[in-house]
């Protein structure tokens, strides 16, 4: 009896466990642990870099998330550079000199990326203008149409309703 219930529910149990696993926080692959960095400052720089740098062959993963070989190599390189004493900006320059700004998850603001950064704001402003315009128009219509008679009629209706509900 219990067995059959279990078997019937198997697909559900499976689905729920898959979902449960998928929402677990994922903290990267730790297959080749790199030696710890000498200072906390360096460790922080490194941690920030591997979150900000893109794994180029996987498109939508940063170096931390990816288990691609190239990502491992770039993690190693980043580690090396930080150990050498390079700061965040210097490592970013090293990477963009070789792979282009695509290696950054947040591309820098410059002429070629202006549209990328500007368009969402432009869209936002545009939509906001349209909405404000509409709201203004709507309130104008109300002002025009609600004359004294309308007001009286509305008051009467409200009055009537109050009476109905109290009786």
């Amino acid at each position, binding site marked *: 009896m219990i067995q059959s219930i279990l078997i019937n529910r198997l697909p559900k149990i499976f689905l729920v466990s898959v979902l449960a696993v998928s929402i677990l926080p994922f903290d990267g692959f730790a297959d080749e642990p790199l030696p710890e960095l000498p200072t906390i400052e360096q460790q922080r720089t490194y941690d920030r870099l591997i979150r900000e740098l893109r794994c*180029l062959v996987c498109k939508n993963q940063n170096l931390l998330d990816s288990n691609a070989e190239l990502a491992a*190599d770039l993690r190693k390189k980043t580690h090396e550079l930080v150990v050498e004493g390079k700061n965040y900006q210097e490592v970013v320059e090293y990477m*963009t000199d*070789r*792979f*282009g*700004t*695509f290696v950054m998850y947040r591309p820098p603001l410059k002429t070629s990326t202006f549209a990328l950064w500007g368009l969402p704001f432009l869209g936002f402003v545009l939509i906001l203008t349209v909405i404000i315009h509409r709201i203004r128009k709507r309130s104008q219509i109300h002002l025009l149409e609600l004359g004294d008679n309308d007001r009286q009629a509305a008051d009467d209706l409200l009055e009537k309703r109050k009476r109905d509900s109290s009786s």
Partner: protein
Amino acid sequence: MNLSRKRYRGMWPFVIFCGLAVLLYISLGKNPEHIPSPLIGKPAPEFTLPDLENRDLLSKQDMQGNVWLLNVWASWCVACIQEHPLLNDLSNSGVVQIVGLNYKDVQTDAIEWLDRHGNPYRFIAVDTTGDVGIDYGVYGVPETFLIDKNGYIQYKHIGQLTPEIISQQILPLVDLLREQES
């Protein structure tokens, strides 16, 4: 005036749709794998690497004064097999010298692979760790760089070469760069 404005106002969503459609259509023709290299027009990164037989140390200077191709390949790379006959032909034609960069490979595998598929390379530099690959911004083997007489990168192709790319992009550039003073 007022009437015509009102009539056209309903067109806005359509105009926006058309704009987006054009934008997306243009992007459709682009290869998302093709990321422009910041290295073009810059000196090719220096390297000192052993050759495949471990007899010699090779560097960029060995090709100084020549227009040459640097082809990044590996025996584990499937697309390399596809483009290899083209490299063999190019090498046989003698139009341009090809240097191989054997990227993150096993020496014996690489030698065996060349025995099977032919060796179009003037020499092969071996980058076991992939460090030189990083300097060249390599992320998708095969990659091919065209380097001029002064050691500047003039062209880069990511992925498999095709007859069109060789005849329409690489060969005209090679002719042009040949005439350049070194």
